[in-house]
C-alpha cells in the first residue's frame, strides 16, 4: 500500500479508493469473521469499516501504517457490533484461572497437519473465547502480526499483548482439550476402533 495511493484516496480519487477497497477487503473480512464468527456480520463489518476509513482518511497522517490503522478500525467496529448485539463477552475470573490449567495431554506437533474438521473445532473454540482473547489471537496468530503492531492496534502496552496472548492461547487449549481426539492420535485411533 503506497503512500501515493493513500494521498490519491485522500484527495477523493475514486479510482484510488476502489483500489484501496479491493486491496483491503480480504484482510478486513477475515479479521472481522474471526472476531464475529458470522459471515453476514463480517460483511457488515467490512462495509462499516470502509465507511469509517473513508470518513477519517483525510485526517490520516501516516503516524501508523495504513494497515495498522485499518486493523484498529476493524477491531473497534467488530467490538461495537458485539456490544450492540449484546454478545460482548469479557474475561471473567474463571477465564483467568485457565491460564494455569493448560491441559497436560498435548496434541502432538507432528499432528499439526490440520484437517478441515480440526480447523472447524479450532474456530468453534475461538468463538467461545472472551472477545479480547479472540481479538488478540486473531491479530497475532491468525493474521500473524508482530506483537508491537498488535499493541499499536489495541493501544495497549507491549507487555499487555504478551500476557494477553499467553492467556488467550491457554484458554483456547482448554477449550480444545474437550475435543482431544481431534488432536491426539492415540485417542483418535481408539475412537476409530470403537466406531
Amino acid at each position, binding site marked *: 500500500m503506497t503512500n501515493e495511493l493513500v494521498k490519491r484516496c485522500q*484527495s*477523493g*480519487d*475514486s479510482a484510488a*479508493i*476502489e483500489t484501496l*477497497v*479491493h486491496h483491503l*477487503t*480480504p484482510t478486513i*473480512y*477475515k479479521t472481522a*469473521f*474471526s472476531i464475529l464468527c458470522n*459471515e453476514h456480520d463480517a*460483511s457488515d463489518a*467490512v*462495509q462499516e469499516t*470502509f*465507511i469509517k476509513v*473513508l470518513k477519517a482518511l*483525510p*485526517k490520516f*497522517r501516516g*503516524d*501508523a501504517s495504513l494497515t495498522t*490503522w485499518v486493523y484498529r478500525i476493524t477491531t473497534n467496529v467488530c467490538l461495537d457490533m458485539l456490544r450492540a448485539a449484546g454478545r460482548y463477552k469479557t474475561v471473567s475470573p474463571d477465564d483467568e484461572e485457565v*491460564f*494455569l490449567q*493448560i*491441559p*497436560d*495431554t*498435548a*496434541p*502432538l*506437533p507432528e*499432528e*499439526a497437519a*490440520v484437517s*478441515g474438521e*480440526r*480447523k472447524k473445532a*479450532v*474456530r468453534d473454540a475461538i468463538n467461545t473465547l472472551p472477545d479480547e482473547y479472540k481479538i488478540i489471537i486473531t491479530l497475532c*496468530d*491468525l493474521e*500473524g502480526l508482530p*506483537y508491537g503492531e498488535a499493541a499499536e492496534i489495541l*493501544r495497549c502496552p507491549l507487555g499487555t499483548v*504478551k*500476557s494477553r*496472548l*499467553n492467556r488467550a*492461547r*491457554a484458554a*483456547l*487449549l482448554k477449550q*480444545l482439550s474437550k475435543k482431544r481426539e481431534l*488432536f491426539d492420535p492415540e485417542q483418535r485411533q481408539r475412537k476409530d476402533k470403537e466406531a
Partner: protein
Amino acid sequence: MNCKEFISLQAEYTDGLLDSARAEEVRAHLAKCPACQKRQAAMDSLVQTLHTMDDIPVPAGLSEKVLANLPLPEKKVVRFPRILRLWQTYSAVAACLLVAVTLYAGTFEQYTKTNNESVSYSADTSPAPSPVSPAESPSAPEKTSDEIKQSPLTNTKTKTIPVPSAAVPPADVYRNEDTASTPQIPPSYEGMVSETPSTFLPQTEAAEKPPADNTIIPFSAAMTAENSALQSDDAVPAYDGQDNPENAPAVARASGGSAAFARTAPVYVRETLTFIVTDPAAEAIFASVRAEGPAAVEAAFSAAGIEYTVQQDTEDFTETYHTLTEEATALSAQIDAGETDLSDRLSEIEAARQRIIEKCTAPVLCLSIL
C-alpha cells in the same frame, strides 16, 4: 525458573521472540519439567494450527458490494494547477491594466497594506494633482464612498501616488485604440506617503468627462466588499479563473455588471495595484489572453508599451500556516491514539489551514510597473 515463570514467557518462547539468555533459561526448565514439556508441546501444536487457519473464504463480489454502498465522491474535483490559476490571474490583471491604460481615464487607487516598495508608478515630471476623495469622483458611486469610510483597512499605512492628468488622457482618445495617442509611460515618479488612503484623480478630465460606459470602481470599495465577504460566515471561494459567476470574486459580483470582471487584491498582499473595470472590451481581452496562455500576457503588456514584473508575496502566511500544521499534526497523533474528542478542534484547524492554502494558491500578485 519455576513453572509459573515459564508459563508467563510461553507465548514469546513459542514465537521465538525471547532473547537467547532467556530462551536458554526456558529450555533448562523444560529439560527438567515433564509437565511443562507437555504444555509446550500443546502450545506448539496449537500455534502451528492457528498459523495454517486459512479457511475463511471471502464472499465473491464483496468488494463490489462494499463499493456500491460507499459514499464515493461522484466526480473528482479538479483544480487548476497553481501556475494555471496564476496565469489566469495575470491575464485578468493584464486585461484590467490594458483597459485602464488604453480605454480611459479615470480613477485608480493604490492600496498598500504595508510600506513595501514593490510598486512604483511612472509618471511625467508635471506637478501632481491634489487628492480627490472617492465621493468627489464622478465615477465612484455614493455607496462606494461610504464603504471606503467604513473600510477596516483604513488604519493601515497607505502609500498613495499622485498621477498627473497629463498621464491619463481622456477616455475617448484611447477608446479609438490609436497607438499614436497611447500614453507614454514617463520616467519614474516618486510618490508621496500618507497615513490614510486617498484617491487621486485627474483634475479636469475626470471631472468634466466622466466615462459613461467604463465604470471604474475605486479599489478601496472593492477591498471593503471583499473583506466583508471574507469576514462573513460564507467565505469567498478562491477565484479559479473560470467563467462561472459563482466563482467570480466578491467584488466583481458586488460591482453588478454582467460584463464586469475584476481581480481584487487579497488582504494579505503587501502592495497591489488594482484596476477594477467594467467594460465588455475587457472580457474580450481576458478571453484572448486566457486562450493563449501566459505568453499573451507578455504580448499584451508589450503592445501597451508597459514594462512590468510580477511577483508573489505569501510570506505573511508562512508562519501561521506552519503553526497550524504543527498543531494539526499533534492533534492528529492524539486522535490516532484514541482521543476522539479532539476531532472537532482538528477540523477547525484543518479548515483554517485549508483557507490559507486556498488564499495562498489563489492569485496573489504584486505588479511593479517600471
